[in-house]
């Protein structure tokens, strides 16, 4: 997993609340055998609508999703996070995330940053008046920034300390366990020789 300290990218306004995992990626797209390629299924039901925000050229390269409250409810499918990442999103901002989605995001390296709804509204207004405008998300200082001068927006976001540490260090669960390599090797050296092997 790559280290995450700060990210600046095009903000995409998703003016919807309760976006569940079936809307993020419908079940019919789950048949793949890889962790990549799920971008085609991202928001599949809405992508056919030419007015949908991802179909507008200004937002096509977006990497910071500004979503309504209760984002990621529904099933536990990890594919929802993979689909957002495969599309190119690095950050999702919302005033409330479903717990499992937030957990899956932290494990996979997608930053789910919780800001208050007033900030979401301000960011929506900003990226809609200036399509293609960038948003900066700074994990070190836990702040989100956009705009300049009188239009400047700056707000803090919430993320638990453990997830923040893992993202800053670029550690997934496996990375953390591999940090105990010495313990694993020591254990292996003491295993009885009669234990079965497959090769």
């Amino acid at each position, binding site marked *: 997993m790559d280290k995450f300290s700060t990210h600046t990218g095009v903000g995409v306004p998703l003016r919807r609340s309760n976006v569940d995992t079936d809307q993020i990626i419908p079940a019919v797209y789950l048949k793949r055998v890889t*962790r990549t390629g799920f971008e085609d299924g991202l928001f599949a039901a809405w992508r056919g609508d030419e007015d949908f925000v991802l179909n507008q050229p200004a937002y096509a390269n977006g990497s910071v999703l500004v979503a309504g409250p209760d984002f990621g409810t529904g099933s536990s499918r990890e594919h929802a996070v993979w689909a957002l990442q495969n599309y190119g999103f690095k950050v999702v901002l919302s005033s409330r995330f479903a717990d499992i989605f937030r957990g899956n995001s932290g494990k996979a390296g997608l930053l789910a940053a919780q800001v208050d709804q007033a900030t979401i509204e301000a960011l929506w207004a900003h990226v809609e008046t200036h399509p293609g405008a960038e948003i900066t998300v700074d994990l070190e200082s836990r702040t989100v920034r956009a705009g300049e001068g009188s239009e400047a927006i700056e707000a803090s976001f919430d993320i638990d300390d453990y997830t923040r540490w893992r993202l800053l260090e670029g550690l997934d*669960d496996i990375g953390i366990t*591999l940090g105990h390599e010495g313990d*694993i090797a020591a254990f292996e050296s003491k295993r009885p020789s009669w*234990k*079965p092997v*497959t*090769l």
Partner: protein
Amino acid sequence: MGKTLAEKVWDEHVVRSAEGEPDLLFIDLHLLHEVTSPQAFDGLRLADRRVRRPDLTLATEDHNVPTLDWDKPIADPVSRTQVETLRRNAAEFGVRLHPLGDVEQGIVHVVGPQLGLTQPGMTIVCGDSHTSTHGAFGAIAFGIGTSEVEHVLATQTLPQAKPKTMAVTINGSLPEGVTAKDLVLTLIAHTGTGGGQGYIVEYRGQAIEELSMEARMTVCNMSIEWGAKAGLIAPDQTTFDYIEGKPEAPKGADWDAAVAHWKTLVTDADAVFDKEIVLDASVMTPFVTWGTNPGQGVPLGATVPGPDDFQDPSDKLATEKALDYMGLEAGTPMRDIKVDTVFVGSCTNGRIEDLRLAAQILEGHSVAEGTRLLVVPGSVRVRMQAEAEGLDKVFIAAGAEWRGAGCSMCLGMNPDQLAPQERSASTSNRNFEGRQGKGGRTHLVSVPVAAATAVRGTLSSPADLVPTTAGGN
């Protein structure tokens, strides 16, 4: 204070423990199949990681392989892609694979024990909930998700919070004709599907000790159906005799060292379980399910219950919904329920003893008009053994379909499925809505009940069969 069997096995596998963190457990054997492994391998690739211990890893193709025409390319594109992906991954990462057509291919939980890879005191995981089957040997064995599969592939360990322990003591002996399947269905009806939640369960007592290894596997297999994390049975002479001489069993001095250790794997007399359940085997009878979860079961001699038979409002509602789905009326004698398809197979009841029992009952009988009987061996070895004993001829003579090895109609991922509203008597482990095919209706039964049901066309036990002159031994 002494330790329980589960605590002994657990403690022997702790690589690292720290206050406030789950234990890091070493995994002795990691089993893989085509459905839950592809994303795990892809995750390794994306992070540029290797499989840490290919020598403790084994893969087989089982969940969606066809049981007919298995020498031809798989027709269903999704199944074919998954199988081909497993083959590529196994080759790329150096993992031993038993593919379709290989003599060791079969259901992952049948293959491990028959190779002798499943041994007492091990930790065994697989991306499949019925991994609990391997607990029959006194191993801690449980199912894991795809992210955990990737974790085990990369590290050969798994962070795990230590579960509580429970003892299920089954006193007395099972009556003649009552099997391990009836025992475990009776237990689940007693506890409900959530009764084991959070526990590693140790099955013990006279009835358990009297079971063969294969019957013990049937019991442990269904641990997950009442919510247990894992289920295990202390190894004894029955266990050692089963393992001895198997291809991957320890040999010579290793065998002696292994058995000496295995003999220590018993719950100490002064150990304390967090919970205990006691049942009497001698009053058990053939047991079948009427509803849509494995806890909704009654004795074969009983009638279909109705909402009024339950106090709890949620049980009443669940009963109503289950009866509606199953197309059953409360008060109908279970024996009057007509069955379209009988499935003998799965990791619950697809081993050689199961097929012998089925053949013994079917000998000289014919499958009822309008009923189909599918016999699906759990592995190619089981199939070959059955053919060496002539069991296939008995099945075919009775009018059954004798198939190739795999999960088959247990979960209907391959073409072996129920049609909507078709009713089955199945020796598998799950009667969930749609499990065996969209709209299909499943009654979980033992092997003898399955065989007798195939002959009569309604849920039956061998005692209901009119004796024939042929093969009456």
